[in-house]
Structure formats: structure tokens, C-alpha cells
């Protein structure tokens, strides 16, 4: 889901960068001292998640984990994801520096939206919590695909075609991310419920 350099026109790049900068500012403001270590570790997890491959039929897909990062960090997910994306761009040549803003919106935007929508449900009854956790993993990737479509709409073809293509390619990973998130949440609920939103703050 990383958009390469030179694909997008500059108004798209500029608005992506502006949104990412605003999100990062909000995230840093909301990141208190106790959560810095958590943000760092989740950032590192996101950084390597794209290297975790799930073989699936002829192709294989990789984890994104933006949903988990968003669920556990809320707005602070934005700076965590920005840092990981900068390092991915510099060290792995995934995406690029000019597209950093847009890529941040693609990954971090859905993370924050899923946090705002589903985080209150996590502390509810187990059945609702499981559903919410799955939805976080699922929709964080789905929304990411839609944002990719939106970003490419201005330079390539039409929105539905591109977004449909990206979303279709990521359907397996949406489901896998859903299960990974359910696993993470149920595990954390057992060992360390205070990390989950709704119980600590």
C-alpha cells in the first residue's frame, strides 16, 4: 500500500503532507510520558510488520498492523506510524520521502478512525469486544485501500476502479488482520487489560 515517488501530482502530495503534519501534531500532544515506550515499541512493530508474509495461494500478502497500532495508541499512532514510514522509505525504499505524507494518511488515518469508532466497544462484553477487535483489523486495511484509491484518483483512471483493485487485492489481509487483532486484544485482556483503551484512561 506504499505509493511510490513520482506517481502523484503535487497538490495531492501537499495535502497529504499537511494532513499528516496536523495528525502528527495532535498525536504528539496526546502522547503522555507513560506511553512513550509503548508508542516506540508499536512503531517498531509496524516497521517490521510489512516484512511478515502470509503465504496465500499464488501470491503472498504481508501484515500492516495499522489497526493494532491505532487501537492501542489512539491519536499517538500517527507519530508512531510516521517514524516507521520514514525508516521504511529510507532503509527499504518502500514508498518515498515525497509521498510520506500521503502514505501516512493511508496508514494512520484509518488507524485513528478505527480507534475512534471501535475503541469504546473493546471494554464491553466479550462478544462485542471480539467483534470490535476484528472490525479494527478489517476496516483499518479496507479504509487504507479506499484512501489509496482517493489519492490515485487525481492522477490515474477513475476512483472506483483503482480503489476496487486495491481493496480486492487486500481482502485476504483484511481478514488476517482481523484475526491478528482479535488475538492481540484477547491476549492483552488476559495478561494486561490496562493497555487496552477504555480501561486506563
Amino acid at each position, binding site marked *: *500500500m*506504499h*505509493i*511510490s*515517488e*513520482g*506517481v*502523484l501530482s503535487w497538490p495531492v502530495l501537499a495535502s497529504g503532507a499537511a494532513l499528516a503534519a496536523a495528525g502528527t501534531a495532535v498525536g504528539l500532544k496526546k*502522547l503522555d*510520558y507513560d506511553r*512513550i*515506550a*509503548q*508508542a*516506540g*515499541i*508499536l*512503531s*517498531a*512493530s509496524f*516497521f*517490521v*510488520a*510489512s*516484512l*511478515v*508474509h502470509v503465504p496465500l495461494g499464488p*501470491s*503472498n500478502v*504481508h501484515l500492516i*498492523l495499522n489497526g493494532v497500532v491505532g487501537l492501542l495508541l489512539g491519536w499517538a499512532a500517527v507519530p508512531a506510524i510516521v*517514524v*516507521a514510514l520514514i*525508516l*521504511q522509505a529510507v*532503509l*527499504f*525504499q*518502500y*514508498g518515498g520521502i515525497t509521498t510520506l505524507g500521503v502514505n501516512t494518511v493511508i496508514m494512520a488515518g484509518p488507524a485513528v478512525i478505527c480507534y475512534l469508532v471501535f475503541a469504546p466497544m473493546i471494554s464491553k462484553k466479550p462478544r462485542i469486544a471480539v467483534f470490535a477487535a476484528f472490525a479494527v483489523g478489517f476496516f483499518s486495511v479496507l479504509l487504507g485501500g479506499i484512501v*489509496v484509491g482517493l*489519492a*490515485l484518483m487525481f492522477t490515474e483512471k477513475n476512483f472506483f476502479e*483503482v480503489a476496487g*483493485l*486495491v481493496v480486492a*487485492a487486500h481482502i485476504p489481509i483484511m481478514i488476517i488482520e482481523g484475526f491478528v487483532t482479535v488475538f*492481540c486484544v484477547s*491476549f*492483552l485482556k488476559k*495478561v*494486561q487489560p*490496562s*493497555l487496552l483503551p477504555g480501561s486506563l484512561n
Partner: protein
Amino acid sequence: MNSIKKMFIIHLFLIIIGTFAASDANAHRVTIFAWVDGDTVHTQSKFGGGKMVNNGEISVFDLEGNLLLKGNTDENGDFSFKLPKKTSLKIELKAGMGHQNEWIVHAEEIEALQQDSFVASDRSEDVNEAAETRSEPVAAPGLTREDIEQAVDQALEKKLKPVMQILSDMSDPGPRISDILGGIGYIIGLAGIGAYFNNRKKTDSETR
């Protein structure tokens, strides 16, 4: 503190998986590699990790940005075309979903090859003239200069193909363990800097 410790273990687990799964194929970026062979330009396109780009869109521009030709890669990620112009070429690959890359074939690369053949033919003309004056046979009977040139070209192409393949592979090393560990180190360092400044703020306000 305990919570951080437990969480650290969980995520360390993820990080370790990531580190060891790194050698696998992935589709984060595409690369294109091109080389000139006589009057043909060969290109090879692949996704990071080695998967070939099937039906990727290739556009060839000169350096002024004029589109010279367009084509699509086959299932092996290959696309070859005749040199449209003896200038530097910018070969752009679009593999869909925002994946894009380019390769520049410099004019020197093309000219060097052309000059080589000119020099070769000049020299052989000299030899021919010399041969005429000395009336000595130059080539074995029944073999013209073109035949030999063609045979050498073909042999060279065969021999050079694996070398070009190696070069193409080397142009895309993919993420290495050092990159991955370095990135994790940066993140830990940043978290440390954040913790340090926050801690200073705290102690400052406490002493005041």
C-alpha cells in the same frame, strides 16, 4: 512498569518474526533494470523480493520528456524494444496501485556500443585495404566479416545473459537484516529521546 515489560515481550515476538521473515517475497516496490544490446534495449521489471511484473506498463521517454514508445511486460517481467533514438532514454514502469519506478539508459552506453562497432568496421576496412595491398587472406574462405560479427554477437549475448541477470538481481537487494535492525534501533533511540525530554520537563517542574 510491569505492563511495559509484558507488552515489550509481546512486541518483541512480533519484531523477531518480522526479522526472520524478511527474506520472503514482497510487493512494496517495483524495480526496473535495462541494458542495451546492439540496437535493442532489454528491460526486466520485478517487485521487491523477486516476483516478476506481469503486464506492467512501460513507457520510454527521451530526457526532454517526449514519449517515444509504450509497451507491456510479459509474464517474466521482460520487455525489449528497438532503439528508437540515439539519446539517453528514461524507461518508466507502472505496475499499478501506485507502484512505479524508472531506469535511465545513458547516451554514452548506447554510443559506446555504436562506436565499438564503427571502430571495429573501420579497423577491418584498414585491414582489408592492407590485405588487398599485401594480397593476403584475412578471413577463412567462405566467411564474411558480417558472419563472424554475428557469431561473436550471438555468443556474447549468450554468455552475458547470466551476468546481466546477476546485475539485475543485484540492483534490488531488498531489505537486509542490517536495515531492519538499524530501523528498530532508530525507533528505540527516538523513544529514548522522547522519554528523556519528558523526564526533564517533569523534574524541572518538580524542582520549581
